């Protein structure tokens, strides 16, 4: 293949690397109003009075909005396909504030100084209420986070708001209790994966203005332009025909930008004033007033027979969704969806979960989307089971993993289309030196080195819900334009989607114009999330390109006055099989559009997503632990990946390395923490540590390709699955080093140190 499988440079790579003005803030008008938000100092309170008169009279203040000025229509900021599973539980501004940082007033002024001065002059009185801060105490707490009558859901998500339960789910196949009784070995444990901050380098931002016909134009750093359009239409109570959302280059998302943030505030300012407006969340707001990964408590119980076949699996989840329910039901469900199918020798499986409201910053979508948390819990338990069975943990996996053609208990009969997970495990063992290094060895100086491992899966798109449309046009000059709604957030999908189109059309990439992420011009696409882009949008592009190719052949045959069977397309033109007649693509395009053809050739396909084939990773960690201090150094991390066919090896490798680094952060360093009144204590890079280049050790990536029959060129996803293995693999390695099983992430030196003390 000429394009697919090649490490082609990103088409926007040089521009973004050289700092060209291509991001939201760079493109905003210089005269845009500066929008700032006054935020609640209380975790739970009701506004009893709000006086904006002093602020409003300041010169340069354009508008100040409070809860009295916004439409009375609840909505969700979760960027999900309609009907969104997330509850409609928020207003643009509400009289009740539900976490420290919740929005109280919107201020728009000619410059930042004036806006900040005006903010100081707003006087607010609150009736402070007792907050729900501990998510394990949320159910049945005397305080109820959402009491409002008009909170609604599109369908039953198991919400019981008087109990602070946002969502519940239950799945059960077989008789788990009975199976546990039959098992030779049963192990169980409780895990606490923490809230993690996305910390994309470009914070949330949005620029809005009215165009020449008075439509609201929103330039947003978002992963989900179409969802933002629908969200704004509902929240602002205007028709979506009045809104256009455009995504320029964006500086990272990791799921964070699958949830709306400042768009709604800039938009309402523009609607009220008629003027361009810009909102930029500073780092503190990004840390404390957007979303994080859901903190969870996950109990896992596993039972195996004498031979090491896992027969019963029970998982119970409590998920902290914070003040609003963005992504609460779906992340909860994915804890099970993306872990339980790993092992299919089970005879009974039970999954039970609840997501609860608390008075903290909302949780939301974050790369891995529940699978990360579930993988930590399940894989840690599998490692424990291996120890009890006295089996090598890699052997235990090989014995129990689902294989191609097989089904799994909770999978409704869907057969696994592709997997090279067994090869991933074998390759990872070899690369890390498992046979020599497992479990541990003393390296002197009070230091121990040890290895640990875990496996994981994710989906590729959302089965039965995912969709993507793509359009490829043959232009008058013989070049093509690829229109897609997929949103490149640095991940490189503009590039890989054109690689796929180039491959099918047999043309060089330079002949393709990519136009993406604009709700006015792009065909519908939910956006880049749920590991969808390569698999779903890619399949749409492949089919659209094939359709266009078919039409080019037909048109060529017509112009050459031969039958379709007598022609072939070779990228530069259509010619007869005998080779004696040929029409160039440029000529064909010209005649088609400007001449007697009278029809611009277009390939247009909407691609659904019937199944969601899992990509896999086998992750192996080698750590060195200091027995004296508990300090953990990550020496080596090996991840071997099955993402089906690798479309662009370099871009896939960078995705993988970046995901592993985020997983390392989750395992060892990162944690969103609150003080006793519910104020976030980790609202800057001083308190919230993300890995620097000193902290990641050596990360090595290998691919073990499989071929997914439903994927474009055999491809599956890669973006999310790579984030999942580090917490359980590193935790396993630490246990193998010093015998400390730490179930609260992150595993800090203090925890290891205290854990070692307890062992003596």
């Amino acid at each position, binding site marked *: 293949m000429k394009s697919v499988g090649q*490490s082609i*440079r*990103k088409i*926007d*790579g*040089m*521009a*973004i*690397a*050289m*700092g*060209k*003005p291509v*991001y939201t803030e*760079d493109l905003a008008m210089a005269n845009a109003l500066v929008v700032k938000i006054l935020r609640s100092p209380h975790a739970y309170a009701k506004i009893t009075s709000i006086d904006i008169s002093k602020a409003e009279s300041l010169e340069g203040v354009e508008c100040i909005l409070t809860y009295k000025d916004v439409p009375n229509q609840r909505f969700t900021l979760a960027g999900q396909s309609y009907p969104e599973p997330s509850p409609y539980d928020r207003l643009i501004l509400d009289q009740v504030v539900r976490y420290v940082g919740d929005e109280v007033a919107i201020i728009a002024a000619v410059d930042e100084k004036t806006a900040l001065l005006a903010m100081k002059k707003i006087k607010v009185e609150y009736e402070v209420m007792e907050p729900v801060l501990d998510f394990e105490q949320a159910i049945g707490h005397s305080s109820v986070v959402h009491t409002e009558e008009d909170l609604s859901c599109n369908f039953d998500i198991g919400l019981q708001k008087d109990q602070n339960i946002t969502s519940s789910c239950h799945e059960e196949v077989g008789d788990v209790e009975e199976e546990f009784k039959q098992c030779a070995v049963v192990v169980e444990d409780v895990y606490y994966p923490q809230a993690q901050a*996305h*910390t*994309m*380098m*470009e*914070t949330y931002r949005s620029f809005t203005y009215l165009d020449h016909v008075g439509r609201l134009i929103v330039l947003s750093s978002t992963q989900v332009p179409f969802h933002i359009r629908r969200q704004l239409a509902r929240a602002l109570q205007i028709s979506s025909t009045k809104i256009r959302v455009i995504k320029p*280059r*964006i*500086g*990272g998302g*990791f799921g964070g930008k699958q949830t709306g943030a400042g768009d709604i505030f800039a938009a309402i300012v523009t609607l009220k004033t008629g003027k361009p407006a810009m909102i930029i969340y*500073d*780092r*503190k707001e990004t840390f404390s007033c957007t979303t994080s990964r859901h903190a969870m408590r996950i109990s896992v119980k596993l039972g195996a027979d004498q031979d090491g076949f896992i027969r019963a699996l029970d998982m119970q989840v409590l998920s902290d969704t914070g003040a609003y329910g963005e992504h609460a039901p779906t992340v909860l469900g994915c804890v099970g969806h993306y872990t339980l199918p790993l092992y299919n020798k089970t005879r009974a499986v039970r999954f039970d979960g609840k997501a609860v409201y608390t008075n903290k910053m909302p949780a939301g979508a974050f790369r891995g989307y529940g699978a990360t948390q579930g993988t930590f819990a399940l894989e840690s338990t599998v490692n424990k089971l291996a120890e009890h069975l006295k089996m090598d943990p890699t052997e235990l996996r090989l014995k129990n993993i689902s294989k191609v053609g097989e089904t799994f208990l909770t999978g409704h009969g869907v057969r696994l289309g592709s997997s090279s997970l067994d090869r991933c495990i074998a390759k990872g063992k070899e690369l890390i030196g498992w046979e020599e290094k497992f479990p541990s060895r003393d390296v002197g100086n009070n230091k121990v080195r040890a290895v640990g491992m875990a496996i994981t899966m994710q989906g590729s798109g959302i089965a039965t819900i995912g969709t993507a449309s793509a359009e490829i046009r043959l232009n008058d000059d013989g070049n093509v334009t690829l229109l897609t709604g997929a949103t490149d*957030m*640095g*991940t*490189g999908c503009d590039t890989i989607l054109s690689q796929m189109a180039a491959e099918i059309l047999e043309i060089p990439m330079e002949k393709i114009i990519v136009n993406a992420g604009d709700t006015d011009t792009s065909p519908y696409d939910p956006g880049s999330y749920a590991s969808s882009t390569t698999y779903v949008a890619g399949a749409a592009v492949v089919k659209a390109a094939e359709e266009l190719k078919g039409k080019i052949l037909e048109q060529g045959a017509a112009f050459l006055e031969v039958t379709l069977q007598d022609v072939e397309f070779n990228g530069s033109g259509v010619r007869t099989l005998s080779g004696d007649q040929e029409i160039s693509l440029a000529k064909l395009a010209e005649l088609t559009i400007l001449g007697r053809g009278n029809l611009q050739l277009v390939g247009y396909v909407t691609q659904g997503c019937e199944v969601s084939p899992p990509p896999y990773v086998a992750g192996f960690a080698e750590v060195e632990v200091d027995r004296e201090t508990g300090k953990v150094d990550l020496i080596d991390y090996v991840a071997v990946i099955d993402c089906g066919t690798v479309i*662009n090896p*370099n*871009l896939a*490798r*960078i*995705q993988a*390395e*970046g*995901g*592993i*680094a*985020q997983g390392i952060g989750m395992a060892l360093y990162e944690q969103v923490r609150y003080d006793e009144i519910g104020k976030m204590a980790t609202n*800057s*890079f*001083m308190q919230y540590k*993300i890995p*620097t*280049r*000193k902290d*990641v050790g*050596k*990360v090595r990536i290998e691919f073990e390709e499989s071929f997914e029959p439903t994927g474009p060129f055999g491809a599956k996803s890669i973006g999310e699955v790579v984030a999942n293995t580090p917490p359980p693999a590193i935790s396993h390695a630490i246990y193998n080093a010093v015998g400390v099983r730490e179930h609260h992430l992150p595993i800090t030196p203090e925890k290891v140190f205290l854990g070692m003390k307890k062992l003596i």
Partner: protein
Amino acid sequence: MQIKLTINDKAVKWDVANDELLADTLRSHGLLSVKKACDTSCCGLCTIWIDGKSMLSCSILSVRVHGKKITTIEGLPQEAEEFARILSAEGAEQCGFCSPGFIMSVLAMKNELVNPTEEEIIHYLTGNLCRCTGYMGQLRAIKTYLGVA
């Protein structure tokens, strides 16, 4: 007040407020490669050169650079592009938001350190955060650029 300085080899006179940060001044004059990603001098995205030394432009008041020579990536088209090509051939400019500041640090490092070891490279660049790439690809690009294995 008015300051006189050299921006990318061009002498300019700019009016700046007393409390204005250099990063904001540069952006307001169209040097949009300068990015900011924190309020605590932690991320390195705003890295520029002052008199040839790499500095955080978010942590310096504009009034303090009166008489100085400022260089941003816009002022180093050839040198920066040479490395940017290697970086993007590696795919290590993922979202690209950290890249300009990172490249300014890498070029400064090249001027400062002779045959740096891997450890020295990592140490020199620790202040340049990147949330996308996991740093390995950036390291591969630097090694190719410096011609070390």
